[in-house]
């Protein structure tokens, strides 16, 4: 049975016993006290009438003295019992009201309805622990793809904002609780059959760690993605098979270093993972040369490592006097003053990265630096999400916001496991290749968001394709790219990679013949995905695309066609 009922009953034990005692004593009193009937004879009230009288008196209805007018002795007892029963009622009702108003009781009720909602989910869903900036973006994006999620956050206001946000097509169950507790995770569907992945996105590494461990212990094959902010936690998470560990500082450092040494490859990456992609023209800016990093904290040191690997020349600016002076080109100071910046020779640098943990300082750094050198590439770190408006108008070339970065990285992984593979493989190609690819992407999407997805040739995901292949017809990749409404038109998409028998074929040709078990990564406008699904699932559509004719199943047309 459920907790709520038990709590209610346990609290009501004493008020109920009080009520029973008061009623029984009152009834007994009326039965024992002698009365006088309308003819003046002595009589004793029986239990039936005594119970009737006490019942309406106790509930203050008061039908009067029945069956006969009372004697003074009976009235004295009535006086006593009126107060006794009223007090007993007040006590009972007061206890119930107090219980209902208790926050604990409300939490229990909410927890119950949450558990019921989670158990009622019949579609695959993701369990999202932590509904901050990252969690919110991910839940929304998944929702737009029709994928459900369940949210846990320790902060009540976050759960409230989830409940009032109306931009999702379905309800997302949310619970305010500590995600590191196994029973909370269990209630949120950790053992649910339809839970396809667990995302540990809280800002406490320990909580993420315990969520990841709990999930990997219960179901080793299920996807677990965790964010982290320290290298020790990263190593720990990877040690037991966490599928993806996202360290925002490291991810952004890699991203920036790519921007510094291969601007077009960087843009391809950016377009694939970032919903608001940067314009093509931004790659024309000069990024090869000396960079300045202000603030050598977690972000600064991750950047330093990445840039060093790519042999980019660096100058570090930091005000911390305890900083290890072993770094080359170290300048002491905050970077907000022109003096420090000119000491760091901002005039002949190509870029400056304002990476301190203070938003106002960061903005001040890039504004001062830009005044000293107009052509500087500026990168600014945004620590507080609420400062979004100011940063948007800061005209910085790159804004680094940890929440958004983690969300992009996680979504890239969730969209298709092939996408990270593609991103890794494409780095082997040169910038010219990337430029061509970029032009192709641009012609497909124009100003819209570039989406990416993968399709699988198997019975479950593409029954029509399998049926066609089984009937001995060769289907090539290009068929999937035709518009199912008009085969002369093409969908706004193109294949990025074909995965067949452990071979990853980058940018496959449209004439490649599909085999069962193949997996193809596409990019393009997101509406093309729905049309493509149509082709893969509907045999008639596929037949039309291949031959230009509607397949005709009925007898009459078969006879007619034969002639």
């Amino acid at each position, binding site marked *: 049975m459920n907790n709520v009922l*038990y709590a209610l009953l*346990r*609290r009501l*034990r004493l008020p109920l*016993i009080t009520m*029973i005692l008061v009623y*029984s004593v009152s009834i007994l009193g009326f*039965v024992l006290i002698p009365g006088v009937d309308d003819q003046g004879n002595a009589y004793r009230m*029986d239990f039936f*009438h005594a119970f009737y009288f006490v019942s309406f008196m106790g509930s203050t209805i008061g039908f009067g003295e029945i069956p006969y007018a009372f004697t003074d002795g009976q009235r004295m007892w009535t006086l006593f019992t009126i107060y006794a029963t009223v007090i007993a009622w007040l006590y009972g009702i007061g206890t119930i009201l107090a219980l209902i108003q208790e926050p604990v009781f409300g939490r229990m009720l909410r927890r119950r309805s949450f558990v019921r909602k989670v158990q009622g989910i019949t579609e695959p869903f993701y369990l999202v622990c932590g509904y901050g900036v990252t969690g919110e973006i991910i839940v929304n994006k998944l929702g737009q793809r029709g994928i459900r999620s369940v949210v846990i956050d320790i902060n009540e206001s976050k759960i409230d904002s989830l409940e009032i946000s109306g931009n999702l097509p379905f309800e997302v169950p949310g619970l305010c609780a500590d995600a590191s507790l196994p029973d909370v995770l269990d209630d949120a569907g950790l053992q649910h059959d339809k839970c396809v992945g667990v995302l540990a996105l809280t800002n406490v590494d320990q909580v993420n760690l315990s969520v990841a461990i709990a999930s990997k212990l219960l179901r080793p094959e299920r996807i677990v993605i965790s964010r982290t902010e320290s290298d020790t936690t990263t190593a720990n998470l990877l040690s037991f098979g966490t599928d993806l560990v996202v360290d925002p500082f490291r991810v952004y450092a890699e991203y920036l270093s790519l921007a510094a040494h291969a601007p077009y490859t960087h843009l391809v990456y950016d377009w694939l993972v970032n919903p608001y992609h940067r314009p093509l023209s931004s790659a024309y800016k000069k990024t090869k040369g000396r960079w300045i990093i202000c603030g050598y904290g977690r972000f600064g040191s991750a950047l330093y490592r990445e840039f060093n690997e790519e042999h980019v020349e660096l100058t570090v600016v930091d005000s911390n006097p305890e900083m290890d002076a072993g770094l080359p080109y170290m300048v002491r100071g905050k970077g907000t003053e022109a003096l420090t910046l000119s000491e760091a020779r901002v005039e002949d640098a190509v870029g400056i990265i304002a990476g301190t943990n203070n938003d106002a300082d960061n903005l001040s750094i890039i504004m001062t630096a830009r005044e000293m050198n107009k052509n500087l590439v500026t990168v600014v770190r945004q620590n507080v999400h609420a400062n979004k408006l100011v940063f948007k108008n800061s005209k910085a070339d790159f804004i680094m916001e940890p929440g958004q970065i983690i969300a992009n990285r996680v979504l890239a992984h969730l969209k298709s496991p092939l996408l990270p593979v593609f991103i890794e493989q494409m780095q082997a190609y040169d910038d010219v290749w990337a430029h061509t690819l970029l032009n192709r992407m641009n012609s497909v999407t124009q100003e819209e968001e570039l989406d990416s997805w993968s399709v699988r040739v198997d019975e479950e995901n593409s029954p029509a394709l399998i049926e066609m292949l089984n009937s001995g017809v060769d289907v090539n990749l290009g068929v999937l790219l035709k518009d199912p409404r008009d085969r002369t038109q093409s969908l706004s998409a193109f294949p990025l990679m074909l995965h067949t028998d452990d071979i990853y074929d980058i940018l496959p040709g449209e004439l490649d013949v599909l085999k069962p078990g193949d997996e193809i990564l596409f990019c393009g406008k997101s509406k093309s995905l729905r049309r493509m699904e149509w082709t893969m699932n509907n045999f008639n559509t596929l037949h039309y695309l291949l031959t230009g004719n509607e397949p005709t199943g009925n007898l009459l047309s078969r006879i007619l066609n034969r002639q």
Partner: protein
Amino acid sequence: MNKEKVIFAFFIVLALTLNFGFFLGEIDNPEHHNVFEFFAAIVVSLICTALKFGDRTHLGALMMATSLVADLQLVVAALIWGYAEQVSGVGMTPSNMSSVVSLSGGALLANIISVILLMVETIMVRR
């Protein structure tokens, strides 16, 4: 000695003894069955039920169930008694009396089970 346990056991045993006292005697003879004893049996049985509220153990659930059975039997018996005395207009007949007493006999059985469960619980806790 645990005061709560004493009170709990006291009421459960009292419910049984009162019920047994009322049940004794010829089944259809109103002279043998005291109405005050019946009233006391109902009140104590109700108190027992309230005392058993909120126990989440399996044994607690069983005891709660036996108590509810006893309440149900006694309340129905009280309804029959009230109907016979007040509503029927002929007063208490031997057939009505025998149904009241047989219903209380049923409640007696439920109370016996309740006491047995209480003993089981006591024996299980060897402290």
